[in-house]
């Protein structure tokens, strides 16, 4: 049975306050949502790639994690957690451990789409019983908002700045969720802390309690990098979903399923407008860039609908 | 260096089993209580490429870890190597070279860059075809070099090799007999031109 919000709020908090993430940070909302799906009686080992989440949540001598936590490096949380999971399997087999543990790796889009892709791919291919959660905020925020392969086209970042002749990042974003689907692991889903959180709770629960590897790609706004006012976190998420910039779907044992279809698909402009990183697109001479983005969103959305047989 | 140490150099082509033969010889010597070394010329083996392997056999612990430059014996697993490789380089005069060839030893001397020591030949191809139905020269060559060096008694060698084959061919026991036959025939048929 899927976890509803009424029940979810009763679960013990596994990620405490007192961490040093920015005010209004989406990453901690993502983390809290995923961890809420853990059954209270289950223990967990959590890994994090170097990134905002890690440096802010585990800053000696403080940790915001109520479960066991390990940070190793930027590009290797997949391998690190797979090692811990292998240790668990053998120690359990040998009777040295009795409790049930779940294994969850968190990485930003830098540690997941880019530098950590190999380690993630290896861990998933090997079939470890773990969940890899990408909190995708579309740039290397920890080091000061540099472009990643998850950064949307035309976004202004510090290594893809919008200038007089180049209007921000020049490439469309990599579709990592589909790359992960190509691993044919038991569960892959794209989600966001959206609406009443039913989508992310249900997907986190499935990911954690499906035997074998699972991958969650979670849309995670960054007020600092995207340049919007912190209170607007949930609104930005809503716009990403309603414009079909960030479709919610899952691939369970190879079966593609759309989780949410907007009643009325909003134009991409709605998602772009509140964010300072797209400000340059709203100059009159750049109207065609928005059109280009719209075309790409439409193309990807249509292809997804086809895959999901919608 | 220990006076009793015997140094052997093997010349073959990748895929012919020269390396395996050197290891089997080491194994046979080991089983009689000797100290042994068996090692290939280090590198990736490619089918057909000339390769070198080495043996040291001694009554004392072997400490030296260099290649062998002045061998007591040389084994040539493929006769065609003679034209390209200086197989007798550094070979001691009082030693011997053992060549896989149907020819008589003296017929090959002209190919050995003025080498003056003993030459032995054994027709490993015929023996292999007769006993194994395929061309695997390494077992006959092992029999021949064991005979020439006389590092162990005949029965000791056969017993040790039978055990090795049983271990090595655990999954295909049908080839053990053929290999033993090949070993024994080569042991008997190797012929020498001693100096």
């Amino acid at each position: 049975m899927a976890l509803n919000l009424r029940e979810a709020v009763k679960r013990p908090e596994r990620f405490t306050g007192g961490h040093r993430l920015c005010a209004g940070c989406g990453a901690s909302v993502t983390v809290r949502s995923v961890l809420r799906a853990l059954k209270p009686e289950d223990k967990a080992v959590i890994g994090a790639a170097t990134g905002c989440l890690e440096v802010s949540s585990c800053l000696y001598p403080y940790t915001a994690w109520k479960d066991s936590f390990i940070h190793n490096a930027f590009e290797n949380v997949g391998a690190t957690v797979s090692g811990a999971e292998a240790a668990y399997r053998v120690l359990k087999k040998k009777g040295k451990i009795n409790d049930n543990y779940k294994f969850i790796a968190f990485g930003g889009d830098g540690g997941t789409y880019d530098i950590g892709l190999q380690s993630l791919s290896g861990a998933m291919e090997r079939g470890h019983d773990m969940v890899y959660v990408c909190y995708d905020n579309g740039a290397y925020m920890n080091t000061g908002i540099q472009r990643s392969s998850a950064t949307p086209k035309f976004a202004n970042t510090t290594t893809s700045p919008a200038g007089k002749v180049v209007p921000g990042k020049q490439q469309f974003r990599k579709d990592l969720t589909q790359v992960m689907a190509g691993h044919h692991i038991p569960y892959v889903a794209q989600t966001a802390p959206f609406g009443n959180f039913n989508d992310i709770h249900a997907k986190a629960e499935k990911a954690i309690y499906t035997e074998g590897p699972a991958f969650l790609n979670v849309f995670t706004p960054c007020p600092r990098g995207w340049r919007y006012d912190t209170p607007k976190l949930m609104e930005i998420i809503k716009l990403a979903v309603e414009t079909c910039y960030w479709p919610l779907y899952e691939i369970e044992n190879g079966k593609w399923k759309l989780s949410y279809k907007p009643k009325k698909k909003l134009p991409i402009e709605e998602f772009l407008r509140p964010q300072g990183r797209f400000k340059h697109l709203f100059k009159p001479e750049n109207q065609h860039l928005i059109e280009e983005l719209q075309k790409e969103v439409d193309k990807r959305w249509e292809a997804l609908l086809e895959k999901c047989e919608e | 260096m220990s006076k009793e140490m015997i140094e052997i150099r093997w010349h073959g082509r990748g895929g012919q089993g020269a390396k395996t033969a050197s290891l089997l010889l080491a194994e046979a010597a080991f089983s009689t209580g000797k100290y042994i070394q068996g090692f290939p010329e280090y590198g990736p083996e490619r089918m057909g490429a000339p390769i070198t392997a080495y043996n040291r056999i001694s009554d004392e612990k072997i400490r030296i870890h260099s290649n062998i430059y002045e061998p007591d014996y040389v084994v040539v697993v493929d006769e065609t190597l003679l034209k390209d490789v200086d197989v007798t380089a550094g070979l001691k005069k009082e030693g011997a070279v053992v060549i896989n060839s149907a020819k008589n030893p003296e017929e090959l001397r002209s190919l050995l860059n003025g080498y003056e020591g003993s030459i032995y030949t054994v027709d490993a191809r015929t023996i292999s075809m007769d006993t194994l139905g395929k061309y695997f020269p390494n077992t006959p060559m092992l029999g021949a070099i064991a005979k020439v060096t006389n590092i162990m008694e005949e029965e000791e060698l056969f017993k040790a090799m039978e055990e090795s084959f049983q271990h090595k061919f655990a999954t295909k026991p049908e080839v053990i007999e053929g290999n033993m036959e090949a070993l024994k025939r080569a042991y008997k048929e190797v012929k020498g031109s001693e100096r």
Partner: protein
Amino acid sequence: MKDKKTPLGGNVSWKETTPGGIIYDAGNATRYKTGEWRSMKPVWNKDKCKQCMLCFPVCPDSSILVEDGKMTGIDYDHCKGCGVCVEACPFNVFDFVKEE
């Protein structure tokens, strides 16, 4: 050994610090007060609250206090005043005021 503690504070000798920087007390970040970061402050109007709980999961600082499934207040020790709860509330239960 269940209550092994990580020494806090800035003046811990190398002999006393923990090996490899391991932290023994899970969740001890609660002892670090991030409430000081606030320039704006959400104020919960209990009487208007419908207990819909939508403010709870949106809080990045785990600062919506809940007991038995009901909201009971805001943890100002850790609330950074981002205002996400204020915007997320469908019933406008929160005031968002300047921190005094």
